[in-house]
């Protein structure tokens, strides 16, 4: 049963990657390429976030910090050192994210539940404040524009495949992680943290590890986003970015590995269709969030699965 399930997940991942790989063959406009890239980048961000919340039960309201850090790693390097520093900037952003995640993680895993959420929010806002105020270094509210990746990556299609490859490998790694013994341990941490020490394992160490891993992949998503949009802005660090990735996960379903990815795709498509027509986009996402929390807390994928199980069992009871 367990083996069959993991096999299915990998097939699903392969199909999704193949579908995204086929997108440029349809001769899309550069806008459509950007839309597909956004789905990939935010999909990775949401899946990484869900390792923290859906799997380990740590609701962070501050993952925008790492998403933004990834973006600013690229942006600041290119702004201050020149545009060939795109790839080193990505790597710097990742290293910075890892170091910061360890430092902040050590502080905030000491509290749990609502306090954890509040602290992640506060640290996220602290980073945003610093970025916003430090005008001559970060560009403040103006952000940084004209971040064209150097060399062959400057080509839109090449950059699209570069994004796809990194996102696919990252999601595959996270999938492996979630199916590994460590993934099982992380679920134990969520479901019954009191029993984990009985097994001789540490709750805090597990939480710190997944916090750092999730933050690292969030930073990767952020650095890829800088190349997709060719710009970065302080909004990447703002708390609404953390809120948006949470909404994506809730919409898709936090109980399933691919739920957040599907949620991300749905939000980006809805934003493209509806967001262009209204200035009240927050009102819409607020209402969507409210409905999901009150009526469909398992998310689209989770509710679909529950429905399928229910149909199956009712059919069986009809037959018998």
């Amino acid at each position, binding site marked *: 049963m367990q083996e069959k399930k993991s096999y299915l997940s990998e097939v699903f991942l392969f199909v999704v990657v193949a579908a995204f790989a086929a997108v440029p063959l349809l001769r899309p406009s550069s806008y459509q390429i950007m839309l597909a890239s956004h789905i990939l980048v935010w999909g990775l961000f949401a899946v990484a976030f869900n390792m923290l919340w859906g799997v380990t039960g740590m609701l962070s309201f501050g993952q925008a910090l790492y998403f933004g850090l990834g973006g600013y790693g690229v942006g600041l390097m290119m702004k201050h050192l020149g545009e060939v520093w795109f790839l080193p900037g990505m790597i710097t952003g990742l290293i910075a994210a890892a170091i910061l995640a360890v430092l902040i993680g050590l502080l905030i895993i000491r509290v749990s539940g609502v306090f954890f959420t509040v602290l992640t929010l*506060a640290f996220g806002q602290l980073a945003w*404040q610093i970025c916003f105020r430090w005008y001559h270094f970060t560009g403040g509210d103006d952000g940084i524009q004209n971040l064209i990746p150097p060399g062959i990556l400057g080509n839109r299609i090449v950059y699209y495949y570069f994004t796809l490859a990194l996102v696919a490998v990252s999601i595959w790694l996270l999938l492996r992680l979630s199916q590994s013994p460590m993934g099982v341990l992380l679920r134990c941490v969520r479901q019954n943290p009191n029993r984990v020490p009985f097994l001789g394992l540490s709750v805090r160490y597990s939480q710190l590890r997944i916090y750092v891993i999730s933050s690292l992949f969030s930073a990767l998503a952020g650095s890829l986003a800088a190349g997709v949009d060719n710009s970065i802005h302080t909004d990447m660090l703002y708390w609404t970015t953390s809120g948006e990735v949470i909404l994506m996960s809730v919409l898709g379903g936090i109980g399933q590995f691919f739920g957040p990815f599907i949620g991300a795709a749905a939000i980006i498509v809805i934003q493209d269709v509806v967001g262009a027509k209204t200035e009240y986009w927050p009102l819409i996402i*607020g209402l969507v*969030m*409210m409905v999901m929390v009150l009526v469909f*807390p398992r998310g689209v994928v989770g509710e679909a699965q529950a429905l399928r199980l229910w149909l199956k069992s009712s059919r069986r009871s009809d037959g018998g």
Partner: protein
Amino acid sequence: MDLSFILVQLVSGLTMATLLFLVASGLTLIFGVGNVFNFAHGSFYMLGAYFAFQAVATLQTNFWVALLIAALGAGLLGMCAEFLFLRRIYGRTEEGGFQILLTYSFILVIDDIVKIIWGTEYKSLLRPAGLRGSVELGSITLPTYNVMIIVIGLAVVLLAWLILSRTRPGRIARATALDREMLSAMGVNVPLTMTLVFGIATALGGFAGALAAPLRSVTPGAGIEVIIDSLIVVVIGGMGNFWGAWLGALILGEVMAFAVAIVPEWASVVSYVVMVLTLIFKPEGLFAPRQTRTV
């Protein structure tokens, strides 16, 4: 830095602390009594400011009536929010996360509704007549309005403490925090208590918003800044701890007042530094005992 500068900053910090306390006390009250974390508490603060503004603009009432209308309006809306939405998720597994998400959706919805009704431009409220001048205390002059805020804040602290510790409703509220099942077995309507406590807490938030409106102009999005400041207060003081919130507000208010005067650019960063320091040395908050939680 001479003495009068320090004194002026101290009093301005005290004003800030009082406003912070009025907001944070509502937040900490709901958490302490109902174990509900109201992320949208700052939005009720913002609504209070808008209600007061509207009351003065359309009803031509005086400032004090507007203050009352603001508190009542925010309280009623808070009770509706609890009764219609929050009540539905009590007791769900991993309730804490869903509480945050639900109240987060309130923030987004309230913010946009405020934008639809009042627009995005700054609104300002005049100080009440008679409080526009300043008082002289020895060598320093202080705005009368700020002094009045401090006095009102102290009155509210005392009143809340008296109600919580000396009256029957206060005892019921404290009992709700400890054992809801036992309380309902003794014939207390616990869901009604929860709704009322939520209403009182949001009314406190709205009251603080209206009181602060003459000092800071009112804009949509004000709710976010306020909630983060009051979160820092409760982190410092210990969540669910009434006196902790007061001391937390005092510390943060004073630190911010001096930061604004000395390093104005980085004042908002300084408040986070206080929080980080607290976390490093006492993650449960300065005034929270390790296991027990008091209201």
